[in-house]
């Protein structure tokens, strides 16, 4: 038995019904997310129209060469949604990568810190968490310029505080385990202990949290774009599509409904995946909310 197995393996096998419901959550999440991911992938290979093509009529309804209709400028809505899916995934993956990189590093450091340094770091993280993500993102965007990169960086940084705090707690808990003491007394260096024993023990909870952060990041990017501070036009971020369609909602509802529905599908999808993953990876924590 390796030390890893001591902490996070199921103590008893789950009952049949539970495991079925669990996997159903995971499957449904994967299907929803997969559908949206498919849009993004296909958009690289094929698009109904060029994104800049303004040859359609103003706010044309669905049908007549445009499956979902057109926007004010006569651009095909489906095309916009497909390129928007790329941005959504880009924003989600990018932000989560930044959050994971910065958050895990900070969190591990904070866990090892002692005394006043520990207090300072955790106070700093608490303040950062209390600071609204969107506001922080707006500050970063204002300091740099409004690009997708700025938005991703800003969202990622805001989220890294949440990740760091979680990692700090998890690592602290792992550090009290006997196998860490065993590893240390057998002469393993701290970096090797972290890489070989600490990280493998915290990753199930971490991955679940990152999946949740992914959904939040997608929403945050859409919000920033809605405010005109995300990916600059003509990039068809869903947030921007929603903003543009707001004024025309009564005459051309498809323009607002379609990006809204996709946003909901994707966010629900990754949340279901996170739920499912938690149950599969970390049954001991079932019912506990991260």
């Amino acid at each position, binding site marked *: 038995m390796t030390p890893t197995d001591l902490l996070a393996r199921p103590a008893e096998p789950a009952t049949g019904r539970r495991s079925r419901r669990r996997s159903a959550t995971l499957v449904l999440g994967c299907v929803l997310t997969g559908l949206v991911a498919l849009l993004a992938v296909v958009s690289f290979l094929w698009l109904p129209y060029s994104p*800049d*093509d*303004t040859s359609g009529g*103003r*706010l044309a309804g669905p049908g007549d060469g445009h499956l979902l209709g057109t926007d*004010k*400028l*006569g651009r095909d809505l489906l095309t916009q949604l497909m390129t928007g899916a790329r941005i959504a995934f880009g924003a989600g993956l990018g932000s989560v990568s930044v959050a994971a990189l910065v958050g895990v590093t900070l969190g591990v450091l904070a866990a090892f810190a002692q005394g006043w340094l520990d207090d300072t770091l955790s106070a700093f993280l608490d303040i950062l968490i209390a600071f609204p993500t969107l506001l922080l993102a707006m500050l970063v965007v*204002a300091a740099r*310029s*409004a690009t997708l990169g700025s938005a991703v960086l800003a969202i990622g940084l805001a989220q890294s505080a949440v990740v760091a705090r979680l990692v700090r707690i998890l690592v602290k808990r792992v550090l009290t385990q006997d196998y860490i003491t065993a590893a240390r007394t057998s002469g393993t260096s701290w970096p090797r202990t972290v890489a070989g024993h600490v990280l493998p023990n915290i990753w199930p909870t971490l991955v679940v949290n990152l999946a949740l952060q992914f959904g939040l990041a997608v929403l945050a990017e859409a919000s920033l774009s809605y*405010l*005109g*501070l995300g990916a*600059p*036009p*003509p990039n068809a971020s869903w947030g*921007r599509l929603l903003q*543009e369609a*707001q*004024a*025309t*909602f*009564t*005459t*051309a509802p498809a323009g607002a409904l379609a990006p809204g529905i996709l946003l909901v599908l994707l966010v629900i999808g990754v949340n279901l995946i996170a739920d499912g993953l938690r149950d599969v990876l970390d049954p001991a924590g079932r019912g506990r909310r991260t």
Partner: protein
Amino acid sequence: MSLKKTSLYAATTVAALSVALTACGGSSSSGSSGGAWDKDATVNIGSLYEPQNLDNTAGGGQGVTEALNGNVYEGLFKLTDDGDVEKLLAENYKVSDDGLTYTFTLRDGVRFHSGKKLTSADVKYSLEKVLADDSQSARKSNLKVVKHIATPDAKTVKVTLSQKSISFVYNLSYVWIINSEAKNLKTTEDGTGPYTLAKWTRGSALSLDRFADYWGDAAANKKVVFHYYKNATALNNALMTNAVDVVTGEQSPDALDQFKNNQNYKVNDGDSTTKLLLAFNDKAKPFNNVKVRQAVSAAIDDKKLLHSVWGDYGRLIGSMVPPTDPWYEDLTDVNAYNVKKAKRLLAEAGYRDGFAFTLDTPNYDPHPTAATFIKSELAKVGITVKINTITSDQWYTKVYQNHDFTATLQEHVNDRDLVWYGNPDFYWGYDDKHVTAWIKQAEEASTTAQQTALLKKANRKTAEDAASDWLYLYPQIVVASSKLSGYPLNGLNAQFYAYDIKKKG
């Protein structure tokens, strides 16, 4: 000479008055056909522009003009909804033969809301307030010509100018006459208008009450409440649910269907003075080349853009001058949409393979939409547009103050703002010595006919030079309950005179 001038102004005033009277007659007759109007009605006005503060020399924004100009504060002159200048607190005035001294006689019996009588000292104080170092008045630079203000007696104000300025009287219509003893003007008021400020609830509403001791005709309603909304959808919903009676200006054509086919509402299509500009930096490459500017102007289908943003509303004007300016001319044929010509001009300018430039785009509507459209249009002639989204603060520092841009999009809301093309230091840096001279001469002209002729010449030259690309003129769409009549239609410079609004009981 001076007599002749005065009579000329008198003639214009009479003409304007008769127009105003006809308009009044029309609206009151339509009012009476459906029942009597309520003299003590409360008129609820919906707007998106809450004032920042109540002082128009302290950056109050367009909301302060909308709510207070003409309603609470009055000038020596007023700008009517049709763009004419009429005498208001000035009963009469004389201009010296050299055109440098203006003598104003104040109207009798005018009282401030605090009860104090209007005197020449208040006029002097108010003018000096606009000209003060810390004043943020938009008209400060236009009034810089004021050299000396004298008050020989309580009813007379004598203003000496450093150079002739035919727009002086027009510019005075922006100068509120304020009680020289008034304090806290950012949150309170002391004007002479038909309404007093009743209550200002920040973030939601500003209400005005009819002033009992008003010197002129009393307002046609007892109370006016401006309700402020954060977005156009909320504003339209308020109108639909009768929370407001009238919306000062619609922001999009697509919400109008619900009112157009409804007999309880009237949709009015007026002319605004707001122009959407693709402003080039005329001093920097590549737009210091006239041919490049002409090519870009010709490559963009303004009509399609207007239709995209405004549906069937709004119009193209092809220059900086809106139809309510006296020197308006339809210049849509100059540098009209012509892709072939655009390509030829680009080749002549040495950009056969096109070029790339950054377009600084404010992050609020309609700029992102327009930028997207321009990018797609210019791609067809080989020009690559990189859209850089910025906030309005960033626009102010980067573009307006530091001139650090290649091209930008911006709405220009004021009337008579062609004159900025006569200032080579303005942000777009247009520098043509003829235009600068014509605009200067126009300001020093002796008659409005001369002024108009010179400004028409200047306007044509800027249009031919494609100094900027004037994409379109916004419509001014006022939607009101059909119970209402007598509201302004054109909303010049965001003014909204409420005192003629009649509401049926």
